[in-house]
Structure formats: structure tokens, C-alpha cells
């Protein structure tokens, strides 16, 4: 028996290959066994295919796959899909047409040992607002309703690994905002790792701890989320939604203004109140477009969060009017996107010390 370091047990090792007529999947990466690993890549880059290989749905898959301490696939072994404790939310909902919504939900739950069930029917139904449609058949549901049923159905098996293929794509903003915190809670409280495919940078940065970028069947970059988000040689930093995700510690609550103060590397910031205990570690997202730069800390402005930063690099963006500035903030890096005119006007160059005025900081978890 091989002795495994706890480090290894806390990882999933994915090294899978699949040959298709016009497509070659070759995915090789490690991801932590907690939190959300987001797969990000253009249409047709193989994200769905990779999830299918992990779930065991592609018989031709080669390679090996180790989830935590368990081998799911290697040279000699290949668990069939029903023995892999995954919950799979498909890109197309794939609901059972011959069953009602409730029967769909119960399908996987019944097949999970009672002792292993940690996600409960009523709670899930309430959260995903399925009360009124429990007796409907899938062909009587709207697109978003179908997607919510599919999410609930996958969750009710209390999976040890959740595979989600654009689960929120056809949901309205309000539903998304309900479901995302629930998913966050799930992978925190039940420590169910999630592999999450999404085209929405917003969803990804909200949810993900680890990012895997794919292109044409291969992994082009992967790593801790802020590292990948702020690397200006990667496409994410050049999106309109470019952002940084950094950790902070809760230091104070202000119940009057409903604010929570966080200490982050490089200063203290205020965010909308969330009931985390003092000195909890949390993560905040800072969108590049929310960061403006100034030579002075400024006063008399509605901007609450002002932090001292140093310029690390300046890059032009896809939009030639804009520059992407990578800033050192304490031990972390954040991004700012400002006009080139402002870069000139403020004479910003590498090494310049500036004040970042951050219009809005989103607290995540």
C-alpha cells in the first residue's frame, strides 16, 4: 500500500484523455478536495466532455482519476458511473420524462443509503422553490424550473463530488442569488467539493476557489483563483469582469450602517454586513472596473474604501482606451482598469504609489 500524505488525500488528481473524431481531450490537473473548482473556457473547449469523463459516462476514457483517497479510474480499474458518488447537473436538464418532479427528486435519494443522506428533501424543495410544481411532469415546466429540479435531484444523493455544468444558465438573477449562497454553504458545511462549469465570470468569481482554464481540450492554466484571475497573460484579466479575489479577516461589525469591516492585506475595508463571527476568514472580490486610482486618499466622496497600492504592471487591454493595472496591495495583487488617458494624466508608471478608491467590494464567504 502506498502511504499517502494528508496533502494528497485532500486532492483530486485528474489526468484523463479521450479521443473523438474531431476532438482530443487531454485534461491533466490537481484540484483541492474542498471548495469550488471552476472550469472556464470557450464554447467547444471540452468542459462538458471532461465532466462526463469524470462521471464515468464516456467509456473510451483513458488515464487516471483519483478523488481524495479513492481511485475511480486507473490502468486496471474503471468504476462504472453508478458507483461514482457524484452528483451531476447536466447542461441539458435530462429529467426523467415519465416521472413527476417529486419522483425525479426521489429517484436518486432513494438510491442513497439513509445514513449517508445529509441533504434533505424538504429543505431542498423550499430552497429551489419547487413546492408548486412537485406534481408536474418535466415537459410542463419552464426552462428555469427544469434546471432547478435538476439541481435539486443531483444534490439529494448527497454526492461526494458535485459536477455542475452551467447549472444557473437559464435562471433569473433572483434565483441565482438564492442558490449561490446555498451552494457555498453546501461545500462548506458538508465539504462537498464542486467542479463547476460556467461562462459567467461573475458566478465563477463568486463561487470558485480554484480555477482551471481550458482551451481546445487542454488545460491552459490552473491554480488558486486570485492567482489565475490577476495573471495578465491570461484572458480572465482582460474581461470586462476582470477582478481579484483576496482573503480578509472580520474585524468589526457596524450594525448602524450595516457594514462589516475586514482587515485585508494592505488595509481595512468596509463591506455590506454579513453575520460572520469576528476574526473569521472570508473572501472578497474586487472588480477591476470598481477600482479607480488617485494620487490622494480623497475626501468628500461616497467611496468608502481607499487603500494604498503600488503599480506592478501596466497593460493595454482589448479595448485600446483602457489599461489594465496590476497593483500590489499588501501581500496580494489586485487589478484596476482605467482609461489610458488617466494613466497619462496621473503619470502612472510601474512603481508609482497610489490610492485605490474601491467603489464596491463584494464579500463572498
Amino acid at each position: 500500500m502506498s502511504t499517502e500524505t494528508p496533502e494528497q488525500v485532500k486532492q483530486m488528481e485528474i489526468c484523463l484523455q479521450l479521443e473523438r473524431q474531431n476532438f482530443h481531450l487531454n485534461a491533466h490537473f490537481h484540484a483541492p478536495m474542498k471548495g469550488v473548482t471552476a472550469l472556464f473556457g470557450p464554447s467547444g473547449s471540452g468542459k462538458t466532455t471532461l465532466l462526463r469523463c469524470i462521471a464515468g459516462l464516456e467509456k473510451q476514457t483513458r488515464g487516471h482519476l483519483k478523488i481524495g483517497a479513492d481511485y475511480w479510474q486507473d490502468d486496471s480499474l474503471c468504476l462504472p458511473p453508478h458507483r461514482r458518488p457524484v452528483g451531476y447537473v447536466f447542461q441539458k436538464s435530462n429529467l426523467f420524462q415519465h416521472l413527476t418532479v417529486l419522483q425525479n427528486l426521489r429517484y436518486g435519494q432513494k438510491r442513497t443509503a439513509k445514513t449517508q443522506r445529509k441533504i434533505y428533501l424538504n429543505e431542498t424543495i423550499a430552497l429551489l422553490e419547487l413546492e408548486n410544481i412537485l406534481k408536474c411532469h418535466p415537459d410542463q415546466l419552464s426552462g428555469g424550473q427544469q434546471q432547478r429540479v435538476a439541481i435539486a435531484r443531483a444534490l439529494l444523493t448527497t454526492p461526494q463530488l458535485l459536477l455542475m455544468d452551467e447549472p444557473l444558465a437559464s435562471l433569473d438573477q433572483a434565483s441565482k442569488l438564492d442558490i449561490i449562497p446555498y451552494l457555498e454553504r453546501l461545500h462548506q458545511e458538508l465539504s462537498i467539493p464542486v467542479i463547476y462549469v460556467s461562462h459567467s465570470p461573475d458566478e465563477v468569481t463568486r463561487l470558485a476557489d480554484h480555477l482551471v482554464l481550458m482551451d481546445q481540450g487542454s488545460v491552459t492554466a490552473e491554480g488558486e483563483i486570485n492567482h489565475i484571475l490577476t495573471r495578465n497573460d491570461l484572458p480572465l484579466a482582460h474581461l470586462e469582469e476582470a477582478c481579484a479575489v483576496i482573503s480578509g479577516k472580520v474585524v468589526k461589525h457596524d450594525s448602524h450602517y450595516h457594514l462589516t469591516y475586514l482587515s485585508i492585506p494592505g488595509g481595512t475595508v468596509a463591506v455590506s454586513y454579513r453575520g460572520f463571527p469576528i476574526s473569521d476568514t472570508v473572501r472578497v472580490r474586487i472588480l477591476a472596473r470598481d477600482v479607480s486610482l488617485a494620487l490622494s486618499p480623497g475626501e468628500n466622496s461616497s467611496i468608502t474604501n481607499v487603500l494604498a497600492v503600488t503599480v506592478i504592471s501596466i497593460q493595454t487591454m482589448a479595448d485600446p482606451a483602457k489599461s489594465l493595472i496590476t497593483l500590489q496591495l499588501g501581500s496580494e495583487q489586485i487589478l484596476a482598469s482605467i482609461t489610458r488617458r488617466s494613466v497619462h494624466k496621473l503619470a502612472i508608471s510601474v512603481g508609482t504609489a497610489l490610492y485605490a478608491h474601491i467603489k464596491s467590494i463584494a464579500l463572498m464567504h
Partner: protein
Amino acid sequence: MLQTIAEIDLQPVWLSLKLATFTTIFILAAAIPLAWWLHQEGNRSVKGAIGAIATLPLILPPSVLGFYLLLLLGPNGPIGQLNERFDLGSLAFTFEGLMLASFIYSFPFALQPIQNAFQTMSKGQMEAAATLRASPIDRFFTVALPLARPGLLSGATLAFAHTIGEFGVILMIGGNIPGETRVLSIAIYDHVESMEYTQAHILSAGMLIFSFLVLFILNSFHQRRGKYYL
């Protein structure tokens, strides 16, 4: 006329219903797994061949098929000899023999629609079932079969109706023995042959009306909106 009705021997009717019911059950029990197996990935040509063989009994004229079955099952035939060796008794001229013959003859009618049903089924739902912990056999019963319901209904209808109507094979292998192998189709045939037209008309009409009702009900099932609610 009334007297003629009263005199009609109804035993063949029950025999036919019994035969068709049992045959249909056995056919479904065999055709469903076979269709499923044919539907799975695997050696295409082996499967093509087996599918073709299962359809072959269709091609032979029933009484010729009956003749060959007789040769097979009779005391000189291979199956007959086997039966003799193990002292099982002959199948020819028995109800069991009829079932075997009807099975062979009606099998293709059930196989084809069921095979189609599996083929047109979307793969996605089976995959979803797999990720929901359903083993292959489990998802076969809980997903594939319910989704194939229209095909199963069609297959069963065709097999049942065809067994009721079948005649050439049965006459040959069954020997027209009252109470044992004289089924309805043969009884009607006998009446026609003996120019007892009134009896033939009555039995035929009764059979048609009964069958019409059964088919009508089945058809309504079949077409009901939301084809999935049994």
C-alpha cells in the same frame, strides 16, 4: 340461429385467450432483454445477424414453419430426441407445443417495435439515472422500460393479436385436438371448411367485437396526451 349460438363450443375461445396471453408474456419476457441487448453497443454484425434470425420466422409460410417445427419436435427430431432422453414427453400436439410455436412465429412482431423504442430513447435520461446511483439493471427497469412504453404496448398488441389469429403453424403442430390444441382460429376454420357458416360468422363476429374493444382501449392508452402516464 339462437340455437346455433347456444350450441357453439366456447372451449376454443378460452384456449385461444389462454394461448395468446401466455405467449405474449413469454414473448415480452424474451423480446425485451433481446431488444435491449441488440440496442447496446457491441459487435454490430453479430447483433445484426441475431436480429435477422429472430425476424426470419416471419418469412416462412405458417404451415411450412409448422411442418419444420413438427420435424424438430417430433420423436425423430433433435428436440424430440432430447425430450425423450430426459423423459420430458413430446411437445408436439400439446398446449406447450402451441406456445412454443406461437412464440417463434409471433416473436418478431414484438421485437421490432420494442427495439425501435429503445433506439429512439434519449441517452441523456439513462446517463442521469447512472449518475443517480442506479445500476444498469436498475435503470433498465426504472428508466428504459417506462420510456419504451409505447413500443412495449405495440409489441404486445401485435404479438397477442397475431397469436389469436395464427393458424397455419398451430394446425400443423397442434393437430386440432379439442380442449388441448383446438384454438379459436382453428375452430372457425373448421366451421368454414364444414360449411357451418353460421357458426363461423358468429365466432368471427364475436372475436372481432371483443378484439375491437381491447384494441380500442389499448389505442386510447397509447395516444393519451402525456404518453408517459400509465
